[in-house]
């Protein structure tokens, strides 16, 4: 019991970054990563999400999955704000290589250079990659 109390009241807040590098439907990584992010919200940590390489495709507007009979989980990214997860970082170079811009994304994000992304990563206590 006392351990639980320590966790809830005295536990230190760590910086967690979830790094997303896979497109949304070709593999299960993106959906599973999002599930873990939602779970992490219960632990009151300092959580951020990074999107680079094909991970930027997770945030593209207008996903319509009826034809492939898969769950369209993209609206969940807009719900993250409600879980106090508001730090969404997107690498500019990854967007540009894919013909995308910030306007093509379904949620407000912070677009940054590869170098800035590297800085963000290096500041984390824990980095979890999907």
């Amino acid at each position: 019991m006392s351990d639980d109390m320590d966790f809830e009241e005295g536990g230190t807040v760590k910086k967690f970054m979830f790094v997303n590098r896979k497109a949304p439907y070709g593999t299960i990584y993106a959906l599973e990563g999002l599930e873990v992010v939602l779970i992490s919200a219960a632990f009151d940590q300092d959580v951020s999400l990074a999107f680079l390489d094909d991970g930027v495709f997770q945030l593209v507007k207008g996903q319509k999955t009826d034809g492939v009979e898969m769950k369209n989980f993209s609206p969940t990214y807009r719900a993250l704000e409600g879980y106090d997860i508001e730090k969404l970082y997107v690498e500019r170079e990854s967007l540009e290589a894919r013909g995308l811009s910030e306007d093509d994304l379904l949620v407000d994000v912070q677009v940054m250079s590869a170098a800035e992304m590297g800085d963000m990563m290096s500041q984390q206590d824990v980095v979890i990659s999907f």
Partner: protein
Amino acid sequence: MLHIVNKSPFDTNALAGVLRVAKKEGSAVLLIEDGVYAATKNSATEASLKAAGMPVYVLQPDADARGLQSKLMDGVKMVDYGGFVDLVAGHDNVQSWL
């Protein structure tokens, strides 16, 4: 031959393999699943696909799932699942580039 690619061109070199190796006469490329990202307008892969010298088909349900409805380059042809079957039936042979 019908060449089918189901992986993102940014993730694997399957599409690059098709474009390097495929004998162009009588061939076509069909992009499915994450392969459809290759046909995104203004992307790094648009030029190589334009220079493919073969008809390029995109499986529409996969493009729609990924939000690419209005983002596809000119010159690609959309097919549905029935069109997929017609393409397979209409070529002498098929290769899925895994």
